[in-house]
């Protein structure tokens, strides 16, 4: 029988089958690559630190490998991973005695992110500064709006998937998403990078470049 290549494991079903009955390492590698950004991103939203998100994400995948043969397919693999990630992240938060989600904002306080150790050109540094600013904006949203925005806009999930993950009705999710998008847009327009975003309104985005991304 032909050995499956990484690319041939197109669906989650194939991936699970390969993990359980075939080449475990091949399936595991693809499994992580497929979901690493998703898991990392969710962990980061909870923990607010790259190093903690890294630890949490590793833990999530090791747990997933352990339980994957018993995965009951009552939800999608992504939803299942989301739940594991949230559990692991909350457990880490408890360990840090930082059970309050709102504390997440503190993690994004100026100077806490470990960027200083990596020398970057000025433009890249400015983009990193903006990235931190944007994550702080996200952190300022109410929890439900933030989660919905991250899962819908950043992770590109369907409302059905998000509804399964968060246990919220689709109507409620759409309302949260609308509020989050509106608040973020207004904050971007009126914040320290407002000029950059106002240009998009006056000149359009055809020649948009992050080169002049300055507060």
């Amino acid at each position: 029988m032909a050995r499956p290549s990484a690319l041939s494991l197109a669906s989650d079903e194939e991936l699970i089958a390969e993990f359980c009955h075939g080449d475990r390492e091949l399936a595991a590698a693809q499994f992580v690559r497929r979901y690493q950004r998703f898991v990392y991103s969710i962990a980061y939203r909870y923990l607010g630190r790259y190093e903690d998100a890294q630890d949490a994400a590793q833990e999530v995948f090791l747990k997933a490998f352990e339980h994957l043969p018993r995965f009951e397919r009552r939800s999608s693999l992504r939803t299942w991973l989301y739940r594991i990630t949230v559990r692991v992240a909350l457990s880490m938060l408890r360990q840090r005695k930082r059970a309050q989600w709102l504390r997440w904002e503190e993690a994004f306080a100026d100077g806490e992110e470990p960027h200083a150790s990596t020398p970057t050109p000025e433009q890249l540094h400015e983009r990193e500064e903006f990235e931190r600013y944007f994550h702080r904006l996200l952190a300022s949203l109410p929890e439900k709006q933030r989660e919905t925005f991250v899962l819908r806009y950043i992770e590109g999930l369907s409302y059905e998937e998000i509804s399964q993950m968060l246990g919220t009705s689709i109507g409620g999710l759409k309302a949260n998403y609308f509020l989050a998008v509106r608040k973020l847009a207004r904050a971007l327009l009126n914040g320290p990078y407002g000029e950059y975003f106002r240009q998009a309104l006056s000149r359009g985005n055809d020649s948009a470049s992050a080169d002049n991304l300055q507060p």
Partner: protein
Amino acid sequence: MTPRQQTTYSRRDLELLLPDYALGRLSAEEAHRVAEALQAHPDLAAEAEMLRAIFQRLETTGYMRELERQSSTLSVQVLNRWKSQRQQPSWQRLAWLLLPTLGLLLLLLWWSPSWVPLSDPPTVEHVHSVMFSQEAGVPYADGLVTFTYWSSGVPPVVPVLPSQPISQRELEELLNSLPEIEVSDAAAPYAP
């Protein structure tokens, strides 16, 4: 009726569809219907344009760059940890199973009464003391000899029934001989 089948939308419906419309997440058919409905709500149409412009510009900032960079090495780290876990010697994993089982077994044996090493019941026991009591009015005839055993502490009673009345001398001889008597298994029914 689902939104997909709707031909007109309320203002509230439009608001809920606005982000997906502005950010290009609706099907072409539904986007067309929303665009038509927005003609009746110019303020929402303007907001949709604003959202589209802002979020398109947001995409140029690479606002997820660091997060993506951080997560890009995750697969290597996870797989290394996973492999090292799997490569643990099998005896080591077996030990994790066997040790608690063994401990439990020892605990059960320790608590079990059968664990206390019991000696077999003595087949021969030395008489500790002897007492002869005469029946009233029957001198040196029927009497009772009480044996006290070392181990039991409860003296069994063994009747001594001489066939003939015995003299004082015979009684003394009997008493003198008794400490030498060894009680065999035959006395076991009297044991507690």
